[in-house]
């Protein structure tokens, strides 16, 4: 019983992390119809930069964020303006998969060249302790990840839904000409949108660096899982993805402690196919979601 509780608690915390890692993906997709296969690669790029900051200057990983977040934002703007923007609009969704697949390979190759193929990790003292509540252990690193995820998602949500920028971004995606005609600088806005998505990768990468060792090819493992999260959540819905992430985190945690690890990983895909059969637009997706 307590094992189940432990699995559940860990699942919730991990789910929070998944939500953070998937939020960028959901953003590119929802607002830009771009399937960003390279997102996990950028996550690990973020993790490596955190590692450099930590080993070279001895700073706490989170103190690197003021540098990495703006850097990734700029990188995102560049990727959108120089690459994504050049795709023919009628098949952005598909060509972007291939384009970003190429980007992922590029990043992996560069990481391998600069950092070699060996494992790196960032370990902090607080990352090995845990809080015990009613016999359930809650690791501090996971609590931190959960908190950071929550905070980032809240900011993201505010930016997208409430701000002028968010409105402009959504308008740009839905009808570029009309958006230009109401005075939106569409190129700039789309670039910023991508930048925001990539900025979440900087945060996610930092958290990831804190809780797991990594090497250049680590990102492959995450692609399938994160993609499953955003499909189950309803493509493009940042909120949906967050809910789905927690749901899948819990399912994974519980299945792991009750069955085994293979089945736990399998649950992501089981839910993915279930979602397709029952609700192709995703469990939390909007009514128009299936139209893309």
């Amino acid at each position, binding site marked *: 019983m*307590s*094992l189940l509780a*432990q*699995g559940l608690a*860990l*699942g919730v915390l*991990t789910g929070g992390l998944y939500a953070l890692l998937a939020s960028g993906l959901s953003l590119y997709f929802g607002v830009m119809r771009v399937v960003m296969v390279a997102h996990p690669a950028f996550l690990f790029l973020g993790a490596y930069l955190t590692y450099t900051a930590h080993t070279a200057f001895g700073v706490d990983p989170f103190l690197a964020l003021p540098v990495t977040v703006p850097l990734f934002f700029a990188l995102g703007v560049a990727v959108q303006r120089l690459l994504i923007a050049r795709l023919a609009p009628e098949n952005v969704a598909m060509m972007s998969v291939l384009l970003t697949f190429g980007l992922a390979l590029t990043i992996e*190759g560069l990481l*391998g060249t600069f950092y*070699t*193929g*060996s*494992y*790196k*990790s960032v*370990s*902090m*003292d607080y*990352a*090995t*302790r*845990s809080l*015990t509540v009613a016999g359930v*252990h809650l*690791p*501090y*690193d*996971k609590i931190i990840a959960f908190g950071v995820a929550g905070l980032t998602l809240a900011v993201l949500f505010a930016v997208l839904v409430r701000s002028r920028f968010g409105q402009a971004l959504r308008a740009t995606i839905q009808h570029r000409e009309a958006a230009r005609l109401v005075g939106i600088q569409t190129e700039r806005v789309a670039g910023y949108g991508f930048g925001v998505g990539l900025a979440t990768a900087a945060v996610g990468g930092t958290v990831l660096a804190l*809780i*797991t*060792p*990594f*090497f*250049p*090819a*680590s990102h492959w*493992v*995450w692609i*399938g*899982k994160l993609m499953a999260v955003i499909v189950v959540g309803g493509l493009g819905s940042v909120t949906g993805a967050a809910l789905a992430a927690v749901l899948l985190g819990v399912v*994974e*945690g519980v299945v*792991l*402690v009750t069955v*085994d*690890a*293979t089945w*736990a*990983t399998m649950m992501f895909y089981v839910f993915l196919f279930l979602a397709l059969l029952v609700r192709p637009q995703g469990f939390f997706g909007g009514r128009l979601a299936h139209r893309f």
Partner: protein
Amino acid sequence: KTDEPGAAQSPGQQKGSVRIGVSLPLTGDFSEPGKGIQEGYQVWADRVNAKGGLLGRKVELIFRDDASDPNRVSSDYESLITQDKVDLVFGPFSSRLVIPAAKVAESYGMLFVEPAGAAAEVFEQGFKRLFYAAPAIASDHYDYLADYLTELPADQRPKTAAYASLDDPFAQGTAYGLRDKLAAAGIKTVVDEVYPPETTDFAPIAAKIAAAKPDLVVGGTQFEDSVGLVRALQELKVQPKLAAFSTGPTLAEFPAAVKGAAEHVISPVGWSATATFTGNQELVKRYKEMFGGDANEDAANGYTVGQIVEAAVNAAKCADPSKECQDKLTAHIGQATFDTVVGPLSFDDKGRPEQAHMIQQYVNGKVEIVLPEQAKTAGIVYPKKPW
């Protein structure tokens, strides 16, 4: 065809350098150990050439990257053997890549000494020219530890053990070798978990182990998961009397990655930097000169391959791809004993080495060999201190 079997490969062409073809995973999942083995091969070649070469000919290594892909590994050996017409081949890394590679070498009648295919299955394919250049195959890696534990007095002897293993023939092989021996001796298996390579979160596995409160925790691991498991066990306050992990702790990055939790962690190791076996100190020194860092087990395994083939070539007095020569080399390795940096090695009829791995432990922050008796640099600490 120029590479038609038996065509144009006269045994007399003993000119030029001895060209040795190797395919290694220099990129991809196995790139880290692949690199280590490459360095081991290079150190060996450097030493041989400094001494005037093999049979008076310079040694030239030809590397191919297989990107950790079995398809490529086959292509590589295929092209090395048929197109580059190398004189000898050395093996690649990982049990997963050794089998397809050995198939190619075998079908062209090439001797195949390999540094990394330790899984039991490698030796069940009926290969005649394959030899594993390390002290023991995967399932025997923990032999000394198993002996030690089963011989403990009854009151100190552990009662229960938890096993968590990566789904990989080598990693699993090591853990299951120990499991089977301990189970036979009456130590109960309370958790037996296999996780796929995709696993990124080890906390729930640790939670399972925590719930079982075992005396021993054994991980059939590679690096990433060993670190993940140690951290998760620590966070969930699992305090076993002994913790053993396969590959992770033998890498230099391990202590930093687990932040002090490395103390008293045990793992099997085929090689020790401090051992005085033939050529070992030369390897350590030369490696430092060439690559700046400290040699590791992977490099030593590569070096060992070199040593064995070198001895065979010297004994058979030939180094060319002809059937006669390769037969002679194979026959020699099959029956001789070799002095290597991992100790004296000999092989059974399936190419399995017949010695055993040592057991290392972090004691006071340093890696010490604690088993067997005759090689130990420090006494084994059991039970371990809490982490």
